C-alpha cells in the first residue's frame, strides 16, 4: 500500500459506507422511517443530502417511504430507502409498483431476526427469499448482498447503476454485523467510479412511446415534468402506458420485463472466488458469513484440505451458471447461512452434478464462526 493510499483510508461503519456509496452514485433523494439497525443511514443522509441540493424526508411509515422514493425516481431523481425486516415487509406493496412501472430505486434491508419484530437487533439472513418473492405476482428483481464495509460502498454504487440501467428496483441485503462493524477502508476517488444514468428519450415528445420495446428491453425513461406527458399505472399496460387486458399485450409486457433482466445476466450476476482453481470442496456464502467462510477456507488449506470459497454478491437472479461450474468441479459444497437454508435450496435446485450439499444453519442471532465452517471442511 502506498502512502497516498494509506492516507485515503477512513474508518467507516457499514451503514456509513452505504451512504457514501449512494452519494457517489448520484442518489439525491431518500425517504425512510426509523428502524434499528438501519437508522444511521437515515440520520447521515438527513445531514448530507441537503448539502448537495438533495432531499431527505422521514415519512409516516415504510409504505409511504417506498411511495415517496418511487415518486421522486419517476420525477427523475436517483432515490433510495433503508430499513430492516418489519419495514421491508411493509414496503412490499410499493416495491411491486416499482417493478411494474420500471422505476429505478434502491432499497437497503439491514436484516435482523424475524418473522415479525423477531430478534431485534441480532444479525440474520432470514429475508433472502422474501427479497426475491416478497411482493405478489410474477416479477423480476435484483438482490445484492454485502459482506464488508468496503462492499457496502462498491455494491451500493453497483446497485444504483443496475437499477438505472435495467429500470428495476435493486435490493441490497446487509445484516446487523456488516451495518455496525467499523473497518478502515480506502474509498476510490470520485473520478474512478463508473456511474450509469437511465437513458432518456432521444425523440421529441410527440414521438415518445413510454413502454416501447427496444433491443435492450429497457424502454427509454422520461421524467415526470420534462415535457413527455404520459400515463404511469400499476395495471398491466400497453406500450403507451394505458391499462390493457388484451392477452397478446399482457403477455408481451410480462415477457419483456423478465427478458430485460435475463439479457443482462452476465453483468448482473456478480460473484467472487477465492482459491477455487484447484478446489475439491467449496463453500458458498454471502453477507457477513462470507467473512467467516474465507477464514475457514484459509485454515483448511493450512491443514492440506483443497477448499475454496464462492462468495455471492448477487443472490437474485441466482447465478446458476457460475454455481453449476463449481458444483461439477467439486465433490461437496458447504452452504452456511444465518437462516434455515434459503440459499441452499437454490443451490439444490441447480445441482445437476450430484455434488454433495452440506447445509449449516444458525438461527440463534449469533454469527457463524470460522471454526464451525472449518469443522465441515475437515470432515466432509
Amino acid at each position: 500500500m502506498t502512502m497516498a493510499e494509506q492516507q485515503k483510508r477512513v474508518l467507516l461503519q457499514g451503514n456509513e459506507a452505504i451512504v457514501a456509496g449512494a452519494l457517489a452514485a448520484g442518489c439525491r433523494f431518500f425517504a425512510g422511517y426509523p428502524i434499528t439497525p438501519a437508522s444511521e443511514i437515515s440520520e447521515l443522509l438527513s445531514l448530507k443530502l441537503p448539502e448537495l441540493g438533495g432531499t431527505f424526508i422521514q415519512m409516516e411509515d415504510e409504505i409511504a417511504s417506498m411511495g415517496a422514493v418511487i415518486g421522486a425516481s419517476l420525477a427523475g431523481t436517483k432515490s433510495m430507502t433503508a430499513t430492516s425486516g418489519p419495514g421491508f415487509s411493509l414496503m412490499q406493496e410499493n416495491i411491486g409498483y416499482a417493478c411494474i412501472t420500471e422505476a429505478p430505486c434502491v432499497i437497503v434491508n439491514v436484516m435482523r431476526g424475524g418473522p415479525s419484530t423477531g430478534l431485534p437487533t441480532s444479525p440474520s439472513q432470514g429475508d433472502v427469499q422474501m427479497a426475491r418473492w416478497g411482493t405478489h405476482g410474477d416479477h423480476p428483481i435484483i438482490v445484492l448482498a454485502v459482506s464488508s464495509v468496503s462492499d457496502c460502498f462498491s455494491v451500493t454504487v453497483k446497485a444504483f447503476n443496475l437499477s438505472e440501467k435495467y429500470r428495476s428496483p435493486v435490493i441490497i441485503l446487509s445484516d446487523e454485523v456488516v451495518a455496525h462493524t467499523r473497518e478502515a477502508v480506502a474509498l476510490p476517488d470520485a473520478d474512478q467510479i463508473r456511474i450509469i444514468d437511465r437513458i432518456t428519450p432521444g425523440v421529441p415528445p410527440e414521438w415518445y412511446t413510454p413502454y416501447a420495446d427496444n433491443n435492450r428491453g429497457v424502454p427509454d425513461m422520461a421524467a415526470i415534468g420534462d415535457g413527455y406527458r404520459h400515463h404511469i399505472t400499476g395495471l398491466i399496460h400497453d406500450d403507451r402506458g394505458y391499462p390493457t387486458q388484451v392477452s397478446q399485450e399482457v403477455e408481451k409486457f410480462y415477457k419483456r420485463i423478465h427478458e430485460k433482466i435475463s439479457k443482462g445476466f452476465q453483468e448482473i450476476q456478480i460473484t467472487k472466488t477465492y482459491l477455487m482453481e484447484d478446489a475439491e470442496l467449496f463453500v458458498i456464502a454471502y453477507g457477513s458469513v462470507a467473512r467467516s467462510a474465507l477464514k475457514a477456507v484459509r485454515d483448511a488449506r493450512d491443514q492440506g484440505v483443497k477448499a475454496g470459497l464462492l462468495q455471492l454478491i448477487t443472490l437474485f437472479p441466482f447465478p446458476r451458471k457460475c454455481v453449476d461450474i463449481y458444483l461439477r468441479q467439486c465433490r461437496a459444497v458447504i452452504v452456511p447461512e444465518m437462516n434455515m437454508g434459503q440459499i441452499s435450496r437454490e443451490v439444490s435446485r441447480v445441482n445437476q452434478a450430484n455434488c454433495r450439499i452440506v447445509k449449516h444453519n444458525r438461527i440463534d442471532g449469533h454469527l457463524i464462526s470460522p471454526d464451525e465452517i472449518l469443522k465441515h471442511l475437515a470432515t466432509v
Partner: protein
Amino acid sequence: MLERAEIIRKEYLRHDKKFPHVWCPGCGNGIVMGALLRGIHGLNLSKDEVVLASGIGCSGRMPTYIDFNTIHTTHGRALTFCTGIKLAKPELTVITVMGDGDATAIGGNHFIHAARRNIDLTAIIINNSTYGMTGGQYSPTTPFGSKSTTSVYGHVEHAFSIAELAVTAGASFVARGTVYHAVHLEEMIQQAIRTRGFSVVEVISNCHVQHGRRNKLGGAVEMITSYKENAVLVGKAAKMSPEELEGKFTIGVLANVKKPISTEQYQRVIVEARKNSHKNSSEKEKNGIKRYEE
C-alpha cells in the same frame, strides 16, 4: 359555456385512449372531472407542469383519461408518491384525486400526515360513502345504520367527516362541495390549487348503483338533487340553530390559513446545509464522504 366545454374536450382529454370510461351512467366522477379541468383551465397552467395522481377505485381511473403527467398509484398511497414527485420537482403543480375509502381508510395515515406536514399538494376526495368498484362494501364515510354489502343488518360504526378531519390534521385550505353545485365546486378546486400548502376539497358524490340502491336513496337524479336540499353554505350555517341543521351538511371554505409550507421550508434547509458544508469541509474529509460531493 359550450365553447369552453369544446376547448376542454379538445385540449385536455386523451383521445388516443380507448374511451368509453369505466364509470356507471350518472356517476358523479364525471362532474368532478369536468370541474377539475375547468378549474385548471382557468388557472392558465401548462399541461406539462400539472401532475394528476390517483389511488385505486373508481376515482383512480380519472387520470387515465386526461392529458397531464398522470400516475395511477397503489391503493391509498397516492399522496406518498406525490410527496416524492413534489420534493423532486417543487415547480410542478401536483394534484391527487382519491375516493373516501382510498383516502381515509387504507390511506388515512398518509392523508393526515400530508396535512400535518403541510406539503404543497392538492387532494380532491370524492366521497360517495362506499367502495363502489368492489361492489358496495361499507367505507369510513358510510353513515351509521346504512346498508352495504358488508353491513346488511345496518352499519354499526360511525362515519368520518373528511373535511373536518383535514382541518384538524393541519391542512392550509379545506373546502367541501358537491356534484350538484358544479360551478361552486370548480371555484373550490381552483382556490385549492392556488393555495400554497396542503389543500383539500371533499366532494360529496353519488354512487346510486351501490350505496343509493341499497339504502333506497333513489337514482342519480334523486341523489344529486338531495345535495341541493341538504347542503348549506358555511356562512349561512353559522347563523342556523342545531335543530335547523339536522340532516344538513356544510359546503364552502372550512379553513384557509397561512402557515409555513414544508416544501418551501426545505429549500431553506438546503441553503443552510450548503453554508454549513463549506464551514466544515475539513471535518467531513475525515469521514470520507466529502470526496463524492460536487
